[in-house]
């Protein structure tokens, strides 16, 4: 391989580098964009990225770590997972001399840098927007599922907000992960709407759930009466938000592509033997429909262009690490 200019070994071309990306979930736009970002960064670094994943199969995820160890890859990125399940395999990988970085899963190992999107903040940003829009008084339908780590973290913000603003009331909680997620949730939300006509806002801290809420509101023709607050963003989400009559008013998000890229950079640094901070937190941003409409943003590309800070998370940048110049992140 032709090495990178000024790069430390083994990125100087002395070796073909293979990195395993081991995932808990493979589906959904967030996951796909994360992967795309990781892939682009890996290509730029000359890393062969091997993606392991079987949708929502925790024990398979643990197995994949061992498989990666067997393959003697140069580094492992663990993307989501249960910390109880993954901490031992991860420790075993470290023992086998393979560096590991983790995204959104706490592997409880000092040798493993933790990359995380700040889920609590993510939830908080969206909720703060709600509090502002409603002057601290809203009847909220909460659409979420317990037991999913990022959602549980976002739930903490919701509990905090409810305590802080007694005017914000949880009228009902619903939500399902059954697929097709959007339409299944739409069906539930429609039923909720009829039973609780006093709801005037929805908090759905995951965009797939949010899409379900929006679909329900449209089908129940209540899109002008109720506002929706979510987390995460994607081209499809933007297209919905900028519609004239969209009830979807705000979403808090990080750029999954950037996180993917940061994850790859982190593992590359570990492989090169360069110190990486223990905790790398990706800050989220709030996007409101009004803003998006005003700036004529129609898709992720334009979003990245017009919000450079969202576009490129300046973490773990080194002169020898090339980054994508087309503005993917």
């Amino acid at each position, binding site marked *: 391989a032709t090495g990178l200019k000024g790069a430390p070994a083994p990125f100087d071309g002395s070796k073909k580098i293979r990195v395993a990306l081991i995932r808990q979930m493979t589906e959904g736009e967030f996951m796909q964009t994360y992967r795309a970002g990781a892939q682009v960064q890996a290509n730029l670094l000359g890393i062969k990225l091997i993606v392991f994943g079987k949708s929502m199969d925790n024990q398979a995820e643990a197995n994949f770590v061992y498989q990666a160890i067997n393959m003697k890859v140069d580094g492992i990125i663990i993307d989501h997972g249960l910390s109880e399940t993954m901490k031992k395999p991860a420790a075993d990988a470290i023992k086998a001399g393979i560096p590991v970085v983790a995204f959104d899963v706490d592997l409880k190992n000092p040798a493993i840098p933790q990359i995380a999107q700040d889920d609590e903040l993510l939830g908080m940003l969206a909720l703060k927007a709600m509090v502002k829009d409603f002057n601290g008084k809203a009847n909220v339908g909460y659409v979420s599922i317990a037991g999913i780590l990022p959602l549980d973290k976002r739930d903490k913000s919701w509990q905090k907000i409810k305590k802080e603003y007694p005017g914000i009331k949880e009228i009902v909680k619903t939500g399902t992960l059954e697929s097709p997620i*959007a339409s299944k949730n739409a069906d539930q939300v429609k039923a*909720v709407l*009829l039973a609780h006509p006093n709801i005037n806002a929805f908090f759905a801290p995951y965009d797939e759930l949010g899409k379900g809420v929006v679909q329900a509101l449209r089908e129940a023709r209540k899109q002008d009466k109720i506002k929706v607050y979510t987390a995460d963003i994607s081209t499809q989400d933007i297209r919905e938000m900028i519609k004239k009559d969209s009830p979807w008013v705000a979403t808090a998000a990080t750029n999954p592509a950037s996180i993917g890229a940061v994850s790859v950079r982190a593992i590359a640094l570990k492989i090169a033997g360069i110190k990486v901070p223990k905790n790398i937190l990706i800050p989220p941003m709030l996007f409101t429909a009004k803003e998006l409409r005003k700036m004529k943003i129609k898709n992720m590309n334009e979003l990245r262009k017009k919000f450079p800070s969202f576009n490129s998370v300046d973490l773990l940048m080194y002169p020898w690490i090339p980054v994508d110049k087309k503005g993917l992140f």
Partner: protein
Amino acid sequence: MEKFVAFAIKYGFLIVMAGSFLAFGLLEHSFWSWSNLFSILLGVTIVGILAIGVTFTLIIDGFDLSIGSTAAICVMASSYVMVVLDLNYIFAILISILCGVLIGLINGLLIVKAKIPDLLATLGMMFLIQGLQLIPSAGMSIGTGMMLANGTEAKGEFAQQFLYLGQGRLFNLIPIPVIVFAVLAIIAYFILQYTKWGRILYAIGGNEKAVKLAGVNVERYKIAAYVISGTIASIGGILLAARIGRGDVTSGSGLLLDAVAGALIGFAVLGVKKPNALGSVVGVVFMGMLLNGLTMLSLPYYTQDFIKGIVLVAALIFTFGLSKSDLSS
């Protein structure tokens, strides 16, 4: 007494259903509103359509495990045609139906010509299709603005007419998918109940050899049953695509079990104890109604599956447990 038992067997399920209908409405009046009733119907259309398809294969004593993934691949195919290829929505519909027909045909040929047991053949196809649907878009969901392999953005859009299929309403009340569902259900009911084709399908399920010796080309009928199943599944897929408005890769996974459940519950309706179109429709509507009603009563989502199970088992005991006759010659 005997009459009572016969009555219970025949109407037991419907009585349970009517009872829940009453109970939900009394506890929550908006349950009975027209818009909610249509919302229940809308919620079950896709699953219901697939259940009709699977009924045809159950009747010939076969099984089609690939219906869910057939619907899913049609979601992807129609999105691909409209969004990536930027073709007219008519093509999207035609190509999707073609997919359904083709899959059904292959299933039929595998079962009839290669003599592979139905469960096995359709399971193989299920995996195959599940994989195939991901390939054109490299595992990504398909939506306008998505990044294509050549680096450009997909410019095609879901046609308004297409979306109308999933989201439109007649008289501002009756959702179009519900109409499609109803039409399909009536056609299926009519064919199975009042035509020679239906009679032959049932007879094949009872004793294939006897039907062969009555001069019927049994193979052709069996293949036809799978083609019908595939085609109906593709119609379900088209409606699903039109409802969610994008090529969501996760859309197919939950459909299979629910459709099969509906068709199986259908055995108990009117105590017929065999697969039948009316029963399948009632079965899925029943499940949809339970889900809707329980959500309205704010029962937590995690109790709903449980209640669904309890009611299902109770209805089954009613229908099957009471009738002790056992054909024996």
